[in-house]
């Protein structure tokens, strides 16, 4: 008892000491008191709560096991998704459109990080290339949505391929750092190439997409366009995960040397993976540009890469249903937490650390989807 009291006293004193220079004596004293009370309370409640947590974990795993195999659930989810524009306010539809774009992005990154196990910290570069190609083709050449989009997606995929070809010789964290560098170079270039990208002022006046000469300029029609692409992404992802390519990716993730010993051409499949991920980032970029009608380099910072990565990790690396849930949570949560906006990123940072420590496979990731050594 005294030992645990002493322990919480030391922890409280330590945190107050670290806090002291930043916020002064009074706030540190408050922190000291809070931590002093919190640590014993936490230890006691943890022993009571932990069985429930375990049960919740089992439940989450059961859900995650059902998700990818039973496709009927997809159609059940489709019904409420279809009715959103009829029942919800514009604000909610707006958030839903954003969530849709992020689902596509996160599923694209999931191919690279979740399926193949290549950490990418500069995924936003492909998103940016997709959005900028679309915006430039649309505003400078006057191409419509359905011609500009395939063209920009091809450009993005090619960029992914060209960049990956030399970089894939690196492994693990080196590759991660090179992708980070790539993301930053793309952003700095967009910011400084005034004559082509209009620099920090961005590109405006992007036309709304049309379907059969019908302009999708209202929010709800655009919602259906995004929904269509989200469904397309999900279906393709489910198919590819169970295909020869998907299994090769998984083999590379689990053990690259063993995979190549089994005859998988690892470099080739890694190239497929990065290009395929870039493909979806390109689609998401086009949708983003078409929705905002205006883009600037500010939307494509490193934090955006981290946010997309957090969606994938939070939901569960490699689990399609999990990644979708992760994307929705991380888009909706900041909207809900608008009042405590200041503390949002603080919580995100702490959350990433806690998830890595306590549930490295993500909220909905099953055991099978966890990356191993």
């Amino acid at each position, binding site marked *: 008892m005294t030992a645990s009291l002493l322990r919480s006293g030391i922890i409280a004193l330590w945190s107050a000491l670290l806090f002291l220079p930043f916020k002064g004596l009074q706030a540190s004293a408050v922190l000291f008191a809070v931590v002093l009370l919190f640590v014993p309370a936490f230890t006691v409640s943890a022993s009571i709560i932990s069985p429930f947590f375990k049960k919740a974990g089992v439940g989450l795993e059961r859900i995650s096991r059902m998700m990818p195999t039973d496709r009927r659930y997809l159609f059940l989810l489709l019904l409420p998704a279809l009715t959103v524009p009829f029942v919800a306010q514009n604000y909610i539809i707006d958030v839903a459109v954003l969530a849709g774009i992020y689902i596509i992005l996160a599923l694209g990154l999931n191919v690279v990080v979740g399926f193949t196990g290549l950490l990418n910290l500069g995924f936003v570069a492909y998103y940016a290339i997709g959005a900028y190609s679309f915006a430039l083709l649309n505003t400078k050449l006057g191409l419509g949505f359905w011609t500009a989009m395939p063209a920009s997606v091809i450009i993005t995929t090619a960029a992914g391929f060209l960049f990956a070809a030399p970089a894939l010789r690196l492994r693990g964290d080196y590759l991660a750092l090179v992708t980070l560098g790539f993301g930053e170079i793309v952003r700095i270039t967009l910011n400084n190439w005034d004559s082509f990208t209009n620099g920090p002022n961005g590109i405006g006046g992007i036309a709304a997409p049309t379907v059969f000469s019908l302009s999708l300029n209202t929010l709800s029609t655009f919602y259906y366009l995004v929904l269509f692409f989200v469904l397309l992404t999900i279906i393709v992802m489910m198919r590819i995960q169970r295909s020869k390519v998907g299994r090769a990716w998984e083999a590379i993730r689990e053990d690259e040397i063993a995979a190549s010993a089994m005859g998988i051409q690892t470099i080739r499949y890694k190239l497929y993976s990065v290009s395929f991920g870039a493909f979806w980032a390109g689609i998401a970029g086009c949708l983003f540009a078409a929705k905002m009608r205006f883009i600037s380099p500010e939307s494509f910072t490193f934090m955006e890469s981290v946010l997309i990565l957090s969606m994938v990790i939070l939901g569960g690396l490699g689990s399609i249903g999990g990644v979708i849930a992760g994307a929705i949570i991380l888009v909706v949560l900041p909207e809900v937490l608008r009042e405590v906006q200041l503390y949002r*990123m603080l919580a995100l940072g702490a959350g990433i650390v806690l998830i890595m420590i306590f549930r*490295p496979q993500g909220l909905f990731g099953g055991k099978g989807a966890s990356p191993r050594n």
Partner: protein
Amino acid sequence: MFLQQLINGLTLGSVYALIALGYTMVYGILELINFAHGEIYMIGAYLGIIFLGFFTAVGLTAYSVPLALAITLLLTVIVCSFYGFTMEKIAYKPLRSAPKLSPLISAIGVSIFLQNYVMITQGATDKVFPAITGDAGFTMLSTRVTFLQASIIVVSAVIMGLLQAFIKKTKIGKAMRAVAQDKSMASLVGINTDTIISITFIIGSGLAAIAGMMVSTYYGLVNYFIGYSAGIKAFTAAVLGGIGNIPGAMVGGILLGLIESLGSAYISSEYKDAYAFIILIIILLVRPAGLLGKASEEKI
């Protein structure tokens, strides 16, 4: 002009080298890219302003500027090493046996957390470092060198020399090298690896704190996101010299500082921040082991 840029680059490079040492030491021992190391540097810069402000308020600065600076530096180093120690215990230690990418992702989380922690407690606006050092200096070969620049270069050189001696000569330094070579073997011969890892984080954070304090005196301005770009550049410096290699980090840091300042003077200053990334990519593709590093065999 050229010599002037050389001095600027050398000043910047010594700071990069100090931060790079923290990256390289941690990588040498844990094979972890401590992404949050740049934030420790940023915290050091803030603490410099906070402590110096405090000493100015109590009148110590008016009594003696060098004394106030010395005590500020000491306190900054101590508090920053506490931060480094705590960070390792909370975010990395539980992940010792986790897959390799987990600690890296956790480090990104720490980095976001610390940035926002400083932003919330200290505000999002730029902080101004009190201009107490002035811009006095001397002229050498028709180049103006401020005392501040000279002292940054000298202090960095002395610290790097001390560190090198510490690693080579002392018992703890020997233990650190042993842990870097083989962690499980080192623990078998009676080295407490956890303690050594903690010491590594403490030393690395202390070096970053010195760098942060010096930079905030040099530029006079600090904000909560300086850690990210400085961290990336210092990491580039560490990779450039060969990560895990301590003299490599020093060489890499100084080279990077020179490239940046000469590049922005002679090529284009708009792309100043891109140089580090371009060099990082080229080095990793052409010579991943770095300039002074040895290529390691892949372990199966």
